[in-house]
């Protein structure tokens, strides 16, 4: 039985995604992530709780609007030249009233509570696009396994109505959770961010032991797996790391993966950090020469291929 009324915190539902799994898909992004990757382009997905972001360029000014100021119980909105520029996060009680009254997303709520049924109503609307293209649902995040019970109900609801499912996860979780999820998951997309646990920890806040162990576990359990490596220059693109990664995939996993996708790191999300009052710790990467970078990723793909690994560049070549 599916618990249709269970609710969770949803960051966003994106229809017509075509790169996270096969065909035309609806991607449900759940809030909360166990990792804190420095290059993360969706910092608003890290916390499970809803939060308010400030897009100060959009503010109409309190002379023309001012609806938020009237609603805030804590005088937490910071004004400059009669426009909202930030939230005093110390004073803010996260009641969301300011953002609820804002007419134009100057104050935007990240994270809404939705039930399984509310999500499924949207997912079902594009059923015939899935059928024509071999697509379906993708659960992503954050990491959807942070809210794993909620994810499980969504996956069950999909399988009940024969909708293809894909879960994009860091696999930084207990095996029991994987045991619950796998029977309702057609494809798992996961990452290997670094083979050296110290470096992994430096850039993501956690070591890689649990993740690598879980990857072995799901491959052993015959899950269909796509592994992604975000190639971050100066972090994980050195020959040594590539070699060890390739050996892990070829020896420990026997190359039993669907595909290895090498993705370029893009300095996206800088504005979002600022909007949430967070600092961005990947400065300097925007100076990368895109052409050389693209060539480097292609070279890395060839190295992986020499191990018999089905490596490709980009996320749009899924067979």
């Amino acid at each position, binding site marked *: 039985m599916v618990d249709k009324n269970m609710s969770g915190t949803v960051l966003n539902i994106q229809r017509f*995604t*075509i*790169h996270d799994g096969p065909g035309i898909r609806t991607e449900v992004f759940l809030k909360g992530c166990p990792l804190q990757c420095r290059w993360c382009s969706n910092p608003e997905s890290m916390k499970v709780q809803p939060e308010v972001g400030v897009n100060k360029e959009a503010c109409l000014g309190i002379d023309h609007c001012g609806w938020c100021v009237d609603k805030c119980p804590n005088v937490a909105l910071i004004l400059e030249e009669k426009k909202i520029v930030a939230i005093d996060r110390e004073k803010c009680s996260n009641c969301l009233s300011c953002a609820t009254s804002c007419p134009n997303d100057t104050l935007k709520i990240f994270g809404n509570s939705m039930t399984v049924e509310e999500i499924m109503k949207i997912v079902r*609307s*594009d059923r015939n*696009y899935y059928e*024509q293209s071999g697509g379906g649902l993708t659960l992503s995040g954050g990491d959807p396994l942070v809210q794993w019970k909620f994810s499980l109900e969504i996956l069950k609801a999909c399988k009940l109505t024969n909708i293809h499912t894909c879960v994009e996860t860091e696999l930084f979780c207990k095996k029991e959770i994987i045991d619950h999820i796998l029977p309702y998951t057609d494809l798992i997309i996961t990452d290997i961010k670094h083979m050296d646990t110290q470096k992994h920890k430096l850039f993501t806040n956690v070591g890689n032991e649990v993740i690598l162990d879980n990857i072995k576990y799901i491959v052993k359990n015959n899950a269909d797996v796509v592994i992604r490596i975000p190639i971050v220059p100066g972090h994980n693109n050195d020959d040594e790391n590539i070699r060890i990664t390739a050996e892990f995939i070829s020896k420990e996993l026997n190359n039993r993966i669907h595909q290895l996708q090498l993705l370029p790191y893009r300095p996206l999300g800088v504005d979002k950090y600022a909007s949430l009052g967070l600092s961005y710790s990947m400065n300097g990467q925007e100076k990368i020469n895109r052409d050389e970078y693209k060539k480097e990723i292609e070279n890395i793909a060839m190295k992986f291929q020499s191990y018999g690994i089905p490596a490709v560049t980009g*996320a749009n070549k899924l067979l």
Partner: protein
Amino acid sequence: MQMSATEVEKLVSQVLSEMGRQNFKSSTSQSQTKAGFVPNEVFGEGGCEPFDLDYGMMDTNSPELQEPSPFARTNRILKRVHSIPETVSDERALLYTEAHKMYGGTGGSQIIKNAKILAHILKNVTINIYPDELIVGEMGCPARYAPIFPEFSYDWIEDELKNSPWENRKQDRFECSAQTKENLLGIADYWNGKNLKDQLLGVLTEEEIKGSSAGGRPVFFPNLYMYGGVGHTTADYETLLKLGYGGIKKSIVEHLSKIEDCTTKEGIEKREFYTAALISLEGATCLFKRYASLAAEMAENEINSEEKEILKTIASNCEWVSENPPRTFWEAMQLYHLATNIILIESNGHSISYGRFDQLLYPFYKKDMLENRITKSRVAEIIESFYIKIFELRKLRDEGTAVLNSEVGMGGTTLLVGGVDKDGKDATNDLTYLGIEAHAHTRLTDPWFASRWFAEAPWEFKVKLVNVIKIGTGQPKLFNDAAIIPASLAAGRSLEDARDYTMVGCVEIDSGGGKEYGAHDAAYFSLCKVLELAINNGRCIDCGSQCINWSKCGAVGLQLGPKTGSLDTFKSIEEVKESYEIQMSYWVDRMATFINATEIMHARTKPLPYLSTIKRGCIDNGLDCTAGGAIYNFAGPQGVGPGAVADAMCAIKQLIFDEKKVTGTEMLDALRKDWVGYEGLYNLINSDRVMHYGNDDDNADQYAVWGSKVYFDEVMKHQNTRNGKFLPGLYCVSANVGIGLCQGASPDGRRAYEAVSNSLAPVHTMVGTHDVKGPTAMANSAAKIDHLIAGNGTLLNVRFSPNCVAGDNGRNNFVSYIDAYFDKKAQHVQFNIVNTETLKAAQKNPEQYKGLLVRVAGYSAYFVKLSKELQDDLIGRKAYDSFD
């Protein structure tokens, strides 16, 4: 009393002798390619190229610099034609005027007079054959010139000649020599009062004109058939190709002999019609023979042996089909082309469409191929030469139209491939693929290339289409058999005719076989203006002294529409709906009067005897097509702005009645002040915090469904003057820009005079687009509107970024997207494959983007030539990217 055989013979010989002939009998009797191109010459294996050839994105450089075809001949023709500046020609206008005076003096029959005028033009107009072409023939003027049609309207021609010369225009720019100007001004006095438009306005009351585009504050826009010909039809090519002109003449003579009673009004009128029909066909034969002689003469002087042979063949093709039915593919193509041009010379009406090209020509192709008379690559070259001939056709429109619907070109040169046959079976053949490839090899705005699509169509065919769409020319547009066949049946056509449907103009459904005179572009009707009047007690929202009608309307206590209440007093959304329904009934009635009066004027002053000879039904009925001679007779006015109506209703429902954030009075005040002082409300309405059409939300989409249905129901109550029905469409081409320019601010979050939503698309305003859920949600919303009732056509424009459809996966998802949208019984979809950044760059640096083609609406055009307003509208449309 029937006419005796001698009498018939005498009448026929009289016609012939007037045309300077004795009888109907006709008097007489490999290519360079790009390196690496190995054409597939095998019959039955599709086109010359692999079905999955990826053409890549088009080059946006100057078109003159491009060589899109593997055939050197095609590239040579393209280079030549691209370099000809568009120019106005006075020759047809002068010949028409000369003949009008010559035959008008005697009084007599209008239809016979028109036939003689046409024949006079065809006998005397200057003709040319250009280098390299395989198909010859012009529309009464040189290639890329536009002829003038003084008989329809002349005030704008005179005015623009004097005050805003065509060579100074920013859009639809035409050269015009001093001599041409002088000649055209010289006939202005003659045509004043005699032309169709002047006579039409004389039979309408001021009240009827008031809400039309002729009255200043339009609810509806019946311009097209007031200023020019009706067009929007397709000939009975099947019969023409089977019988030839000679066979049709024979049939006319048989009908003439069989007129039962020549003492009656009916009998005499039939005789009048047949006489005119014969005269016009004789004119046509004469034009073909003139091209034959010219080609023969040029062959004599040609030194290049290959070209000499081609000219000889052209001469023999023209000579043979001047009277006889074609025997070969090449002959058939020659007849197909020039016979169509003669329709254009006669009638000026644009959207003379070519019908189902691959079905009509296939028997000739098959026979030639099986008998080894032709190679597939020569067939491809002939088709490409033919496409470029269509691109050569140009039409001059008044400046107002040129700003609003800029760069339409000839207009409606729709050519269709694909689909099922009369028995419902897959009819895809080699010519289907060759037709698609010919667009990839010419990459022109014309023909307006269209394809039918059905779920069971071959995968190869779908891939070929999608790969050509990915080039980014905006062509072809796609039509869904699964929706159009039932819609066509519902309109009253037979199952066989519904399956054999063709597309006319932009997106209009027409029965195949030239059986229909559908007047498919009778008017544009603003659904949003009706809503404006419905929420403001029948007054324009911006009613005031700035209005051009103020002194005779608002200032004297009058208003545009009937009083049906306002947001000041409405207590529920139901009351808004009721008011809209009453206004709708009033305005559709007004429009019907206007359209029918226009039809009457066309039938009286501009019967079309030549076109009628190749429309099925006219000869059998002995009746001209303007008078109802065709088998199917519709009139199609288009509703504009269902998205805008929906979003306005959403804002009213949610903010006034549900959440009570504003009062109705405040909303009206905001609109009258164009949102000044209401910035919060304006931004709120333009945010996703208010529900909007286009996001697959039933609560919002219901108002688009309702707003359209109210219009459909009112339109379908009316009959036209040709014993046919009114059939509503739901699209606007680019009229949404012009309609917006006539309307004040509206509750969908639109500023005054901003464009209204286009066709089935969601609203986009200066703040942004209202659809935020992606292309599947948008398509689902559009499919909720009843496409089976919208019998005159619907239009959905979708823009994808090139990245989104790249590679095999992108291509396959693209095919799936179309299949899934069409599975929901939607009629039509067309695509732009271009980034917003590219469009913005082209607007800024037009010199570097001369070749950038974009899909405007029913047509594609060069982006840098469009008006700023239309460019902005295109940039503002949502581009769907992929999200990774």
